[in-house]
C-alpha cells in the first residue's frame, strides 16, 4: 500500500513538472484562460466556470474510484460490475468523439448532405456488433481483445499481433483527438494550443492511472449525458424557431447556402463506387471492432447485460445522429448569414468546426455557449481517456503480463505497469499533439479504422465462427493484412499525392479497407487450411469447448463480488 502511495506521489510530481516545463508561456496561457477568442474580448465566466465544474466533478470521481481500484479486474473492467444501461451510456461516450458533434456539423455546414453520410454510415456497425459479436465477446472475453483470440490459439504470437495493432490503433486515434482538441479548446477558451494539450494530457493520466476503468466509465457517462442533453436543447431551440417544421428549417438552409438545393443531395464525397464500398466496409466493420469500445463489453457481469449495453448504446447513438440532421442545417440557417459569427471576409470565425458552437450561442446566448463549450471539452477528454485505458491494457496485460512475464506477474505488478503505461500514453499524446500542430490530420482517422477493419474484425470474427482457424493462419494473415493496409494508405492519393507531393498515387483509392480486409480474410483461411502441424490439430480439437462457452456463457469470467 505504501509503495503504491509513493508511486502515486512520484507520478503526480512528474506530471506537474512536465506540465510546468512543457509550455514556456504558461503565465500567458493562464491569463488567456479567462478571456474568450480575441474577437469578443469579453470574459465568458459561464463557459470557464462550467469547464471547471466538469473538471472538479470528474476529479472527485477519480479520487473516489481510486480507492476502489486495487486489482487488475478493477483497473481494466471496473470489477465487471457496471450495469447494461450505464455501460450503454458510457459506450455512447466512447463512440461519439468531438468529430460526431463538431465534425459532422462542420461537414454539413460546408457540404450539406455529404456531411450526413458520416452520421448514417458508421452507425451500421452497431446492429452488426449486436447480432454477431456482443454475446460471444462477453462470454469469451476477460480484459482485452487478445484474451478472446488466445483462448484457443498460441499466447505469445497472437498477443504480439493484437496488442501491436491495438497500440497502432490507439496512437493513430489519439493524434487525431489531441490535435482536434488543441485547436478546438484554444478557440473555445482562448487558451494557447500547447497549454490545451498539457491540460488534457494531465487530466487523462489522472483519470486513467488512478481511477482506472471505474473513473473512465463515469467520465464517459457524464460526458454522454451532457452531450445528449446539450444537443437535444439546441435541436429543440432550432426547431422552435420554425414552429417545429423540419421543412421550414431545411428551406431556410437552402436559402442561405451558396449550394442552394445542393445541400439536400449527394455532392461527390464518394466519387466512385470502389471508394464508396471501401469506405462503407471500413466504417461498418472497422467500427464494429474498435478495441476501446469492445473493451467496455467486459465491464458488465454477463452476456445479457452486454446485449442491454449494445441496445442502449445503439439507441443513444442513433438518437444523437438523428439530432445532427437538425444541428448541421441549423448552423447553415442561423450562423452562415449572421455577422456576429463571421469575420471581415464573411468567413465563419474559427473555421467550420465552430459551426455547432456558434449555433449554440445563436440559440441560447452566453449560457448555452458556455454549456456546449464545456460539453465539447468533456467529449474530447472522455474519448482520450477511453483510448488511453485501451492502450494501457494492451501494454500491461497483453505485452507485460502475458508476453514478457508469461502470465506469472502478480496483480499488483500488473496494476503498477498499467499506471505507468497510462502516464506514458498521456505524455506521448501531449508530445504527438504538439508535434502534429497545424498539420492536416484528417487523413489520420482513416488509419485506426483501417487497422480495425483489417485486423480486429477478421481475427475476432474467424476466432468465434470458424473451427479450422489456426495460430499460423492468424499471425500470417493479420500481419500481412496490416502491412497491406498501411502500405496502400501510404501510396494512396491522400499521403503519396497530397502530402508527399508526388504527381500521381501508386494506389488509386483513398480507402484501402476493402482490399486489406480481403487480404487478411483470404490469407487467414488459406494458411489455416494448409497448416498441418500438431498445434493446429490441438487448436481444431479445442474449438468445441470454446463454442459451448461462447454460446452458453458457462466458464465466462464472472463479475467480482465486492
Amino acid at each position, binding site marked *: 500500500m505504501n509503495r503504491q502511495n509513493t508511486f502515486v506521489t512520484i507520478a503526480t510530481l512528474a506530471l506537474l513538472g512536465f506540465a510546468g516545463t512543457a509550455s514556456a508561456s504558461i503565465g500567458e496561457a493562464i491569463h488567456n484562460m479567462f478571456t474568450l477568442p480575441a474577437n469578443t474580448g469579453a470574459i465568458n465566466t459561464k463557459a470557464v466556470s462550467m469547464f471547471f465544474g466538469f473538471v472538479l466533478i470528474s476529479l472527485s470521481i477519480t479520487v473516489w474510484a481510486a480507492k476502489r481500484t486495487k486489482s487488475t479486474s478493477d483497473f481494466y473492467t471496473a470489477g465487471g460490475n457496471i450495469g447494461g444501461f450505464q455501460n450503454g451510456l458510457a459506450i455512447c461516450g466512447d463512440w461519439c468523439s468531438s468529430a460526431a458533434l463538431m465534425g459532422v456539423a462542420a461537414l454539413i455546414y460546408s457540404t450539406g*448532405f455529404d456531411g*450526413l*453520410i458520416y*452520421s*448514417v*454510415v458508421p*452507425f*451500421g456497425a*452497431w*446492429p*452488426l456488433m*449486436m*447480432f*454477431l459479436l456482443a*454475446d460471444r465477446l462477453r462470454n469469451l472475453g476477460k480484459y482485452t481483445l487478445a484474451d478472446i483470440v488466445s483462448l484457443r490459439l498460441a499466447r505469445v504470437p497472437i498477443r504480439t499481433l493484437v496488442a501491436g495493432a491495438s497500440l497502432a490503433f490507439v496512437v493513430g486515434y489519439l493524434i487525431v483527438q489531441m490535435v482536434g482538441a488543441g485547436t478546438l479548446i484554444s478557440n473555445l477558451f482562448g487558451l494557447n494550443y500547447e497549454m490545451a494539450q498539457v491540460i488534457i494530457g494531465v487530466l487523462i493520466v489522472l483519470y486513467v492511472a488512478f481511477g482506472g476503468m471505474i473513473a473512465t466509465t463515469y467520465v464517459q457517462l457524464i460526458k454522454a449525458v451532457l452531450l445528449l442533453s446539450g444537443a437535444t436543447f439546441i435541436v429543440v431551440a432550432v426547431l422552435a424557431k420554425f414552429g417545429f417544421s*423540419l*421543412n421550414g428549417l*431545411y*428551406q431556410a438552409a*437552402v436559402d442561405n447556402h451558396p449550394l442552394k*438545393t445542393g445541400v*439536400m*443531395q*449527394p*455532392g461527390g*464525397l*464518394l466519387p*466512385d*463506387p470502389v471508394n*464508396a*464500398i471501401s*469506405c*462503407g466496409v471500413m466504417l*461498418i466493420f472497422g467500427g464494429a471492432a474498435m478495441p476501446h469500445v469492445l473493451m467496455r463489453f467486459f465491464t458488465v457481469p454477463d452476456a*445479457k447485460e452486454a*446485449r*442491454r449495453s*449494445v*441496445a442502449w448504446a*445503439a*439507441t443513444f447513438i*442513433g438518437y444523437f*445522429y*438523428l439530432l445532427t*440532421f437538425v444541428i448541421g442545417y441549423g448552423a447553415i440557417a442561423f450562423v452562415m448569414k449572421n455577422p456576429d459569427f463571421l469575420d471581415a471576409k464573411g468567413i465563419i470565425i474559427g473555421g467550420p468546426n465552430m459551426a455547432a458552437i456558434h449555433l449554440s450561442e445563436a440559440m441560447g446566448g452566453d449560457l448555452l455557449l458556455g454549456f456546449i463549450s464545456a460539453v465539447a471539452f468533456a467529449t474530447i477528454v472522455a474519448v482520450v481517456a477511453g483510448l488511453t485505458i485501451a492502450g494501457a491494457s494492451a501494454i500491461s496485460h497483453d505485452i507485460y503480463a502475458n508476453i514478457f512475464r508469461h502470465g506469472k506477474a502478480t496483480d499488483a505488478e500488473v496494476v503498477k505497469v498499467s499506471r505507468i503505461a497510462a502516464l506514458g500514453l498521456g505524455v506521448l499524446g501531449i508530445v504527438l499533439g504538439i508535434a502534429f500542430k497545424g498539420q492536416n490530420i484528417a487523413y489520420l482517422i482513416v488509419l485506426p479504422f483501417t487497422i480495425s477493419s483489417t485486423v480486429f474484425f477478421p481475427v475476432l470474427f474467424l476466432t468465434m465462427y470458424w473451427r479450422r482457424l489456426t495460430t499460423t493462419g492468424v499471425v500470417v494473415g493479420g500481419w500481412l493484412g496490416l502491412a497491406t493496409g498501411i502500405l496502400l494508405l501510404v501510396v494512396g492519393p491522400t499521403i503519396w499525392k497530397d502530402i508527399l507531393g508526388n504527381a500521381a498515387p501508386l494506389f488509386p483509392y483513398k480507402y484501402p479497407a476493402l482490399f486489406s480486409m480481403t487480404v487478411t480474410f483470404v490469407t487467414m483461411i488459406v494458411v489455416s487450411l494448409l497448416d498441418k502441424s500438431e498445434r493446429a490439430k490441438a487448436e481444431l480439437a479445442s474449438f*468445441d*469447448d470454446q*463454442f*459451448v*462457452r461462447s*454460446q*452458453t*456463457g*458457462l*466458464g465466462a469470467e464472472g463479475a467480482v463480488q465486492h
Partner: protein
Amino acid sequence: MEDIYRRIDTDPRFHALARARSRLGWTLSAAVLLAYFAFIFAIAFAPDWLAQPLHAGTVVTTGILAGVLVIVLCVSLTGVYIWQANRRYDGQNRAIVDDASRAP
C-alpha cells in the same frame, strides 16, 4: 468443466438453440448490410434519385428520408434481437446448462 462442456455439446437442444440464434443473427445482419449498401450504392450510382424532393412544395429530399430510415431500421432491428434473445434464448440456455451441470 470440460465434462459439462462435453455434455452440453451432445445435447441436441443446445445445437438447436445455437442454430436458431445464429439464424436470427445472420438474417438481421443481412437486412442491415442490405440497407446500408443500398444507401451507399445509391449515393455512388443514383445521386439524382436521392436529390428528388419528397413531394411538391418541400425541400426535404428522398436522401434525407433514406438516411433517417436507415438509422431507425438499425435501432429497431437491434431491439428485435434483444427482445428475442431475452424472451426465448436465455431461458432455453439456462435449462440446458442446468441439466448438464446436474447430470452425474
